[in-house]
């Protein structure tokens, strides 16, 4: 009887440990990886869509290939991004 109780207890512990390990793997690896993959997929798709639309629509007068405006806007966007990165870096240093 006692060995059965002991066996049951060990089994319970192992079960709990397995569940905990499973949860740990799920929370620490699986969910973030899934979210990361989803973000990569969804965000990449969203960004690709915006960039395509941007390239299709930016058309200043007499700039038929939109080169001037795109160059300016992309440069300024990059400048803005870099500024944001620098500001965040300075704030969190």
């Amino acid at each position, binding site marked *: 009887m006692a060995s059965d109780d002991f066996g049951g207890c060990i089994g319970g512990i192992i079960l709990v440990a397995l569940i905990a390990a499973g949860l740990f793997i799920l929370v620490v690896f699986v969910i973030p990886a899934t979210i990361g993959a989803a973000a990569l997929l*969804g965000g990449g*798709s*969203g960004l690709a869509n915006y960039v395509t639309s941007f390239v299709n*629509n930016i058309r200043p007068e007499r*700039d038929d290939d939109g080169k001037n*405006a795109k160059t300016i806007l992309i440069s*300024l*966007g990059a400048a803005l991004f870099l500024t944001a990165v620098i500001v965040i870096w300075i704030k969190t240093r």
Partner: protein
Amino acid sequence: MATPIQPAYKSYYFGKGYRDLWATIQESWARNIASMEKWFSQGELFFKKEAVHWLQGLFCYAAGVSVVVFGSLLFAVASLVHVIVLGATLLTIYLTFTVFYGIERVVSLYYRIFVTCPHCHLKFDIPVYACPVCSAHHTQLRPGVYGIFLRSCECDRKKLVTSLLTGRSRYDAFCPHCGRFIENPEVTPFCVPVIGTPNSGKTCFIYTGTEAVEHDIAPPSGWTAIPDGRTKPNLEYIRLEAAAGRHPDKTVEHTAKSFSLQVDTGARFPQMLHLYDSAGEVFTGGDSLDSHHFYGYSHGFVVIIDANAILHGKSSSRNDPEDAFVRMINKFKVHGLDTQPSVNRPIAVVLNKIDTPDVRAELGDAVDHPEDITCEDCVDFLNRHGFQNLLAVINLKFSNNHFFAASTLRREGRSLKPRGVEQIMRWLLDEMRFGK
């Protein structure tokens, strides 16, 4: 201040940039929706197959949800960045052209630059400039939403400079009111109306005054004086007439015309002397003085009084200098010239035609050297002949006044020559701070 529509391309950041932004946002959102629908419809296809494909279906659904969540998030962030970049650029350009425009205004004020139409005599800040290639009229060729330093004309073949400081006055200019050509648009003008009764010698004075500045005053001062295209033939004609011993024809036009002399004094911008001539009849009746807009922006005045007519009692209402003078003063308010307490401009009162025998009998041989006849002599002369009222009005309305005697064109041999005009012009230019 809104700029009227110009025949030029608006800066991308002030017009089309926002239409493009909206089109980009719309298309991007539509593309996101299309991507999501594509993933969901693919997932649906997998779920319609056998169970082994359900995992693929699940992946497609998850991808669709990812596009909805993260795609929308990225869309929002990208749109925001686009708006900020566009807005920041707009603000930068706006500030730049505002500063540039401000500098131009300060320079204009400092050098007292404004534009006057030699035809309709209205004053304005900027004329209409024509594109040298297509002649399109640019009514506001200044730094603004069409370009800070340069603007592209709609003809696509010319970039026009937008500022006084970068030389926009090289283009053909036209009056925004009457549409006529203005030869020297943006210079520092000095405007002098010449007033007098009919046959008092206004045209002769203007001719000899212009000649005096061009040949006697400018060269010793190191200035270069050139009559403008409209004035040159008039001067040439009167010069020939005077050389032949004939007085210039009587001015019949009631609309004033200007004799203009561009003087390069070495200043950053050339100076322009305008002497305004009109038929004496406009000072004796009618409403032609209403078109004498130059009273409002004039820098000095010249009143011509026919001394010989005074002696012969020709001061009828038609020839009364006092009447002419008061008529002019009464129009000052109409043209925006403040007369209270007095007009803050110099006035030269000229006793003309002093070379006639009767005047000579009264003033003596000094008439051969009008520069020796003093201001007080002239005042005495007018007092003696009953012009106390005129003197009182002049003293009351013009604190800076001076009386001169002159023979604008007197017979010397076979030709006509001026006497005493140069000193009047020197005094006037000095009082107006011409060349300073």
